[in-house]
């Protein structure tokens, strides 16, 4: 909480840290995009497959579109992007900040009167707030198309993409997508804050850097799952 308040107190310096903000957007957004795309495609595909298998006895194949659409938008899109963020970006943030701390780079910043919260944490928090909705929307869209392709080319489903997207559009509201984006923002913000905090509080040597990375990822994953329940409860 202290790190959050300190970082936010420097929010006014963000415009002149635009280069750092852009760099973090690149790291958080662009470099994470390929794996988000691949995983969301297959999550959408598996969802469609499982839904088709479950609904075939009820003759309700046309509802697969709404099922995949709502599941991706409300739950799986933000959750998957956040988990990937923790594993891929959060671990890298912790490793970088922990090694900066262990090798006294953070101390050097402090003696130069350059607050680490301003230079190292604030641009990352701003970048994750900016990139999480973008990544989540892309994940949702790719997941929906993954489901549509599986529905068309799987023998026992054989659902036309037009029918699939018609139910998806019919049963999904803007609020469903909005709720998912809210979740993504909360999860992403918490992941980056936790990873920065653990990195900046690392003491010791190389072994402690490794331990800090493991701790950051585990804490982030637990927090994502716990927060998911509470945020969902608030949003429903």
């Amino acid at each position: 909480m202290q790190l959050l308040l300190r970082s936010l107190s420097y929010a006014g310096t963000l415009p002149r840290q635009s280069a750092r903000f852009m760099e973090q957007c690149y790291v958080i957004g662009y470099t994470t995009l390929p794996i988000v795309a691949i995983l969301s495609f297959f999550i959408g595909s598996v969802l469609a497959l499982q839904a088709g298998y479950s609904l075939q006895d009820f003759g309700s194949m046309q509802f697969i579109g709404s099922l995949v659409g709502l599941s991706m938008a409300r739950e799986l899109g933000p959750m998957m992007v956040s988990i990937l963020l923790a594993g891929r970006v959060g671990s890298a943030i912790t490793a970088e900040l922990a090694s900066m701390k262990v090798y006294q780079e953070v101390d050097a910043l402090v003696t130069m009167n350059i607050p680490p919260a301003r230079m190292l944490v604030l641009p990352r928090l701003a970048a994750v707030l900016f990139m999480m909705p973008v990544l989540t929307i892309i994940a949702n869209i790719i997941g929906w198309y993954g489901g549509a392709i599986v529905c068309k080319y799987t023998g026992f489903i054989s659902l036309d993409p037009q029918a699939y997207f018609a139910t998806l559009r019919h049963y999904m509201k803007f609020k469903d997508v909005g709720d998912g984006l809210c979740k993504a923002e909360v999860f992403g913000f918490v992941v980056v804050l936790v990873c920065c905090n653990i990195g900046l509080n690392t003491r010791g040597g190389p072994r402690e850097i490794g331990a800090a990375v493991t701790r950051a990822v585990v804490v982030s994953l637990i927090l994502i799952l716990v927060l998911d329940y509470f945020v969902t409860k608030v949003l429903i």
Partner: protein
Amino acid sequence: MACDKKPEPAHDKLEQPPAVGVSVEGLGKSYGDLEVFKDISFKVDPGEIFVLMGPSGSGKSVLLRQIVGLETPTAGGVTIDGHDAASEATREHVRLGLVFQAGALFNSLSVYDNLALYPREHRLGTEKDIRGKVMHALEILSLGNVAEKFPSDLSGGMKKRVAIARALVMQPQLLLYDEPTSELDPVMSATIDEIIATLKNEYHVTSIVVSHDRDLALNIADQVGILMDGRLIHIGPPADLHHPTVQGSAE
């Protein structure tokens, strides 16, 4: 890596702020049951060079960290120019630099960007001004050809020199050095001694130097302190190092 330039600090573009004094009163530091030192008291006047000597593990570097406010003492306190060193406000008022023993360079930045970070962050001049100051500081330390390299490409001694150049660019009022001449050849060590002395003589910078180097203490110190077994056992002029009792402790 000989350096034949006269060491002129890179302070020609901006006005040097006045020097500050340091007062250490009854300072003690423990980590749990491990007592590093206790009841350390000394005073460094503005523009003075204080050299702190002592065997490895005697707590010299820990003492430096207390003085710059990186760690909180368990007893006593440090004031810099009348401000509590542990307070963040002190760093707002006093421009202080610390040359870390291992350099503590930012590995993700080039040498040039390492030096330019402080003036950029504190908006001390235009990019052209900053470039002039950075290149000048690099030239003093014979590092003009490594500006675009990264710290990982440098030897230990070069990293140390870059760290000193980075401190010069800051135009500090108080500059602390943690073993500034370790890993340096004798010629470069002599150059570093000259730079520390020039900063005092021409720019009135207060310096606290932790070193094992007896020659450095004899050449540039105004006061020498000897830290042993967690106690400051002697403070006095460098000439005291010739005294048999003090000489034995210093060695």
